[in-house]
Each structure stands twice: as structure tokens, then as C-alpha cells.
């Protein structure tokens, strides 16, 4: 076998020409509308938050990889994506140092200690959020504000609610609900409600999601099975399904975090199981749990189940016969 032209490689043999930097840059582009919406609705603190998230993540990646004498991978844009997402899943008025430290935790502990991009078990940005809320629960969960824009303030006065609560918190506290919640549809769709920085504007998120779908970076399997499950379960429980779909972090989580290549199942069947599992957990947490919102924890819990789902959803080998019982 001295023939040097003979190259033996394992499958897959068909390769696309998309590399990690291109993919990650597209995700950044797709996240931009939601970031702009966040800054528009929440003002300068949101911008500071986004910058500190990126600084924390990219800085942590640089420092950790220099320290461990590994090749520095900040050029692949994945740390920028994580940084933006960390800021987007936290409240807009959270102190900047919390965002930086959550980014450091997300990259340093959740991503690099598990082996870097492609080896992390959990979605780094969501783990960063879970870390922040568990570490500084008082500081990290009180930064919700109603947007500064005029029409938001006007309709917020109309319902006479605690100004720092998100719509889902109000639902949990019993301040809204019971009657039709259609008056929330438009604000939730546009984004002028209280919530985490990047999750409020369904419109901006969907623009980004359409871009990712057009570039074929994500498929609709996980987001659709996730969102439909939430709608069905909440409708069965007698609540407004559209309100549940539009509010909280569901659209952000379903399109941008549940679809993370590294922490979601490989094939179609597994992805649909994953989406349904996320949807059931999110609905259960929202309807019966102690927290008003459960998207982050549902995706993290399902991340842990991905190896099992992959084993279950493994395609049949060619020629394999089902064993007789």
C-alpha cells in the first residue's frame, strides 16, 4: 500500500463547502435583528449587555486556550454567537459584570472543559443563564423592565401591572389570564413587552430564523415540533396557545438554541423527539412549575438526553432485519 494517492477516509464522503466560520457568521447575522430590536426597546443598557456578553465569551476563549496551550479558535465566530446569546437570554438591565461572568462560565466551563466546540454536552449560552440565575438570583432576575418606547408604556399603564414582571410572570401570579389575551398578541409579536433582552420580539427573531432556513443551516424539524407541542399542551390545559407561543423565550430558544448542532440529535426522527420533549417540559414548567418560564431549563434537560435519543433513533443498517421477539 505504498501508493500515496490512495487516501482512506471514514464516512461522510459528501461534504458541503460550508465551514464553521461561515456558519457562525450567518448565525450572528440572523441574531442581529433581535439584537437591534432589544436595543431599540430597552435602550443603552441592552447594548452594554450585548457587548459585555461578547467580550466575556471571546475573552474567556482567548485566555483559556492560551493558558492550556491549545490553538486559539476565536476566529471561528462561535464565541461571538455564544456571547450574543448569553446577553440575549438575560434580562436587559442585568449588571454588566454578571453578563461577563456568565459568558466566562459558558465558554470556560461548559464549552472548553468539555473539549471545545463540537464536544460540549450542554448549550453554553443557556448554561450561562442557568449559572447566572442560580448564582445571583436576586440580581439576575430583577432586570426586567418595560420598554421605554411610548406605546409600550401606554398599554402597560392600561393593564395596571407590576412594571418589572414579564407577561409570563404576570400569568403565573394570576394578574392576567382567564379572559382572552389577544390584546397581548401585537406587543408580544413586535417585542415591546418586558422580557429577556433578545427574546421579546417574535418578528425580529423570525426574520433571523427565515435567513437561517434560507441558508439551509437549520431545518424546521426541531423548532416546529417544539412550538407545536407547546401550543397543543397549553391549549389542552385551557390556556391561550398563541400567547404561550409568542411570550417568553420560546421562539428564541426553538430556532436558535434547540437547533444547536452540537447539542441536538443527529437525524430527523431524533430531532422531532427532541423538539417534542422540549415542548412538553416547557409547558409543564410554565403551567405547573415554580418558575414562570421554562425554555432554558427544558433545552438543557433535553441536551442531557441527546445521547439516549440518538441511540434510540439510530437508522436501521442496510439489510438489517428486525429481531423476532
Amino acid at each position: 500500500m505504498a501508493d500515496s494517492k490512495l487516501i482512506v477516509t471514514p464516512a461522510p464522503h459528501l461534504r458541503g463547502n460550508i465551514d464553521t466560520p461561515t456558519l457562525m457568521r450567518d448565525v450572528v447575522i440572523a441574531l442581529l435583528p433581535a439584537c437591534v430590536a432589544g436595543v431599540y426597546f430597552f435602550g443603552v443598557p441592552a447594548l452594554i449587555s450585548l457587548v459585555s456578553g461578547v467580550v466575556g465569551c471571546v475573552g474567556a476563549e482567548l485566555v483559556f486556550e492560551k493558558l492550556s496551550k491549545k490553538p486559539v479558535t476565536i476566529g471561528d465566530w462561535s464565541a461571538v454567537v455564544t456571547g450574543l446569546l448569553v446577553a440575549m437570554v438575560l434580562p436587559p438591565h442585568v449588571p454588566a459584570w454578571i453578563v461577563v461572568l456568565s459568558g466566562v462560565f459558558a465558554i470556560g466551563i461548559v464549552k472548553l472543559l468539555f473539549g471545545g466546540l463540537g464536544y460540549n454536552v450542554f448549550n453554553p449560552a443557556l448554561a450561562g443563564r442557568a449559572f447566572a440565575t442560580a448564582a445571583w438570583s436576586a440580581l439576575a432576575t430583577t432586570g426586567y423592565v418595560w420598554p421605554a418606547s411610548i406605546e409600550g408604556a401606554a398599554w402597560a399603564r392600561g393593564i395596571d401591572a407590576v412594571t418589572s414582571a414579564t407577561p409570563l410572570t404576570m400569568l403565573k401570579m394570576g394578574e392576567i389570564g382567564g379572559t382572552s389575551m389577544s390584546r397581548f398578541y401585537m406587543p408580544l409579536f413586535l417585542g415591546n413587552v418586558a422580557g429577556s433582552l433578545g427574546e421579546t420580539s417574535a418578528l425580529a427573531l423570525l426574520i433571523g430564523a427565515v435567513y437561517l432556513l434560507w441558508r439551509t443551516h437549520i431545518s424546521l424539524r426541531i423548532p416546529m415540533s417544539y412550538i407545536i407541542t407547546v401550543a397543543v399542551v397549553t391549549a389542552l390545559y385551557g390556556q391561550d396557545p398563541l400567547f404561550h407561543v409568542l411570550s417568553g423565550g420560546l421562539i428564541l430558544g426553538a430556532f436558535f438554541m434547540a437547533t444547536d448542532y452540537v447539542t441536538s440529535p443527529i437525524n430527523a426522527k431524533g430531532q422531532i423527539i427532541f423538539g417534542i420533549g422540549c415542548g412538553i417540559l416547557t409547558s409543564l414548567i410554565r403551567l405547573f412549575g415554580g418558575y414562570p418560564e421554562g425554555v432554558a431549563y427544558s433545552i438543557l434537560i433535553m441536551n442531557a438526553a441527546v445521547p439516549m435519543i440518538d441511540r434510540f433513533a439510530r437508522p436501521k443498517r442496510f439489510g438489517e432485519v428486525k429481531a423476532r421477539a
Partner: protein
Amino acid sequence: MSSPLQAFTNGIYKENPTFRLLLGMCPTIAASMAVSNGIGMGLAATFVLIGSNLIISLLRSVIPSEIRIPCYIVVIATFVTIVDLVMNAFLPELHAVLGVFVPLIVVNCIILARAEAFASKNGPVASIMDGLGMGLGFTVALIVLSAIREPLATGVILAAADFGFDGIRLFPQRYAMAIVNQPVGGFITLGLAIGAVNLITSKKKSKGSHGAQGGAGK
């Protein structure tokens, strides 16, 4: 057989029960929330280790091997009862904080493991030294972990309620990370500490042979 001195130093670093043998994880996580708890737990376990190692070493030819584990447990439980009552009498605050983990020293893996692996095969002097070394190794590990966890979780270090000492405040309470006080934070701290110990060990080893390789701790 190793000499008594070797048996002593073995437990402190080379076979440190927490960082190298990974034994006794539950008390490690529970007792490393404050430096004073760590010292209290470590010394209690050291006392039980020395006592049980001595008695089991003396009785090693009498104990039938089929029922050796129940026999060890009876010996260990005797010493744990002594520690439990003494601590309850003289250090009530510490006893309240450590709570169920004091009686649980009975089933601490370190103590049973040393009875099984060392005291049942070695003489009383070496067994005492082994118990002392292992106990101090455990204590040192607890102090290292709690010296990291206590300030991060509360902003205070060296708080000891039994001595009426409120500790030294390093930064305000509102910046403290509550997660470090929870088991999650304990396991993350423990994991990072084990990583650091392995890094130091591998650095030492590569220096010993040929120091060219960069020591990325596995």
C-alpha cells in the same frame, strides 16, 4: 510493607483520599462550604480513622474474613458515636451545621477503605500513621476546597459560629455567588481542584523524565 513514615506521607499527597482516590465525596461536598466546617469534619474523620485503624489492626487476626465488613462497621460506629457526642457537647454550632454528616462518617468510604486495604494487613503503628496521614490529607483537601467556596459563596472567609467569629468580609454579600454553596458549585470546585492537582502532578512527572512536553492536565 511500607514504613510508618511512608504510610503517613502517602495519605497527604500521593494517595490523597479526596484528590487522588476520590473517596468520601458526600462529606467533601457537604463539609467544604466553610473553612471551619472543613476543619471540624476533617479532624473528626481523622480521629475516627486513627481509632478504627488501630483497633482493626489489633484485631486483624481475630476477625473472621466472612463477616469482616460488619465487624469494621461496629468498630467505626463506636468512634463515630464518641465524636458525635463530643462535638454535640462542645461545638454545638458546628454539630448543627454538619448535621447528619457526623453520624454518616460511619459509612464514609475513606474509613472503610483504609480498614479494608491497610489496617487489616498491617501492624498497629503503621495503621495509626496511615490513619493520621489519610485523615490529614482529607482535612487539607477540605480546607483547600472550603477556602475557595466560602468566600465565593458568602463574601466572608473564616467564619466560625462556635467561637463567635463572624469572619473577614472580602466583598459585599450582594456579589456572592449562591450557586457555590449548592452541591453543583461543590462538584465544579472539586473538579477544578482535581484538575489543578493532576496538572501539578503531570508537570512534576514530565520534569522528572524529560521536561519537553507541555503538561495539559487530563
